[in-house]
């Protein structure tokens, strides 16, 4: 009995350790101060635009990500046109160049560089919807992709 228990521990302890490290790593990757600051600023703007705003929603972000939009380039009706339905997968530009996954778990630097983020939101919202996205839409998408 004693022997069997010690064998169990030898298996369980490293596994548990690895699991803890993995969770810490994921938590570290997801909690980025720059991204938190970007989200906080977007929340302030969202509140200013709509006093009823309470918090960003991953579910709303997911719906927006997968929705068919209109108003932009008819060949680019959705985020998924280039980024695919699976944010953890590689996407593809219209001329076939690979796009690194948008999911923060796969591309940890996503939404940490405000200038880069603004450039791509402005371009791609214009391409897909023919307008800029609202702070709520942007915050929802970031929240959705941060959990992916």
């Amino acid at each position, binding site marked *: 009995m004693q022997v069997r228990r010690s064998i169990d521990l030898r298996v369980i302890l490293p596994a548990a350790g690895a699991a803890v490290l993995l969770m810490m790593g994921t938590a570290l990757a997801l909690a980025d101060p720059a991204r938190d600051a970007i989200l906080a600023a977007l929340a302030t703007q969202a509140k200013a635009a709509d006093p009823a705003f309470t918090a960003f929603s991953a579910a709303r972000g997911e719906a927006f990500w997968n929705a068919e939009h209109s108003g932009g380039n008819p060949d680019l009706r959705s985020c998924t046109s280039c980024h695919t339905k699976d944010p953890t997968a590689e996407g593809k530009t219209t*001329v076939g160049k690979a796009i690194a996954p948008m999911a923060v778990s796969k591309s940890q630097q996503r939404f940490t560089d405000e200038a880069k983020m603004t450039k791509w939101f402005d371009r791609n919202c214009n391409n897909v919807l023919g307008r800029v996205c609202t702070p709520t839409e942007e915050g929802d998408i970031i929240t959705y992709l941060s959990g992916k």
Partner: protein
Amino acid sequence: MRMLLVWDLPTRVFHWLLVLCVATALITGFLAPEWWKGVHAVAGYGTVLLLVFRLIWGVFGGEYSRIASFVYSPRRTLEHLRGLLMLRPPHYMGHNPSGAAMIFALMAVLIALTTTGLIELGGEEKQGPLAGIVGYALGNGLKPVHRALAIVLIAMVTLHILGVAVEIAITRAPLIRAMITGWKPLPAGEPVPEPRSARPRAAAVALALVALPAAVVLGELSRLPPTGIPTLPANDLYAEECGACHAPFHPSLLPRSSWAGVMAGLSDHFGQDASLPHDEVQRIGAYLQTYAAEAWDTEAARRFAVIAADEPLRITATPYWRKKHARLDAAVFSRPAIGTRSNCSACHQDAATGRFDDQAIHIPGDKAHASQTVD
């Protein structure tokens, strides 16, 4: 019947190697796809080496290989031609006057062909020993001359083969076997000639005296950087911003006016918003203006500088692009490894350098490799 060794071994080997080189050059020049240009050039170099050898062997070779032995006066040439017409040509042990005339004409055309080819290779393709001293305009300008000479060569080769056939038919002399074994029968009643023998050592010395300086000169010429190819500095901003969506095109692939149009219209970049901050537009724009087609003397730059009137910003709309890809089936561009017409590097392995060498073309998934011809 008494047999005489007429064609010495070097002359026979020369003849058949020349057949091989000329046939290879004609086939790769007229029929093979672009990526055979390297083989075409090798056939040309081979022809040059053979011509140099033959001219030297024409001085130091055996009796019938010596050029002096088959230089005939116009009178004797006419006499021989008249004899041919009456089906009773006078007998010659070596080259007869009509054949000799053809040999000199072939030599002249081959010298002109290899010279124009070498200039074309250097000026247009930026390859070979003349790439450092010949510009695109001259290389490209000689293209029709090279082509016309090749057509003349085909006519002359045909005439040469017909002439041999006629002579065989009239005289029953085994001419083809003679060019393989070297031996020709001496017709009855003809005096036994006393041919001078070859001087191989003198020929080797002469060959060395010609080949060594030529190798040094060509070697030095080959070390010169090709004309009209500036050093393109790396541009991280261009690579990062333009390379985010597509492979960053070599700046030489459009003229300044087109790049200016591209940079002024990023908010609607071929149907998509590719806007950039003002200062980045300025920096990338300046880079493209500096290294646009006008700054290059390469084939791609000179050709793509001619833009389409209706779509002046689109490389794949230029007349040259359309012409060069016209024979490719639309399905080729849909192959997974290619995907789109603007994916130059899928097939042009040197697209990033702007050279677009014919030899660097490899169409993925194209086993047959047979759709385009050399132009």
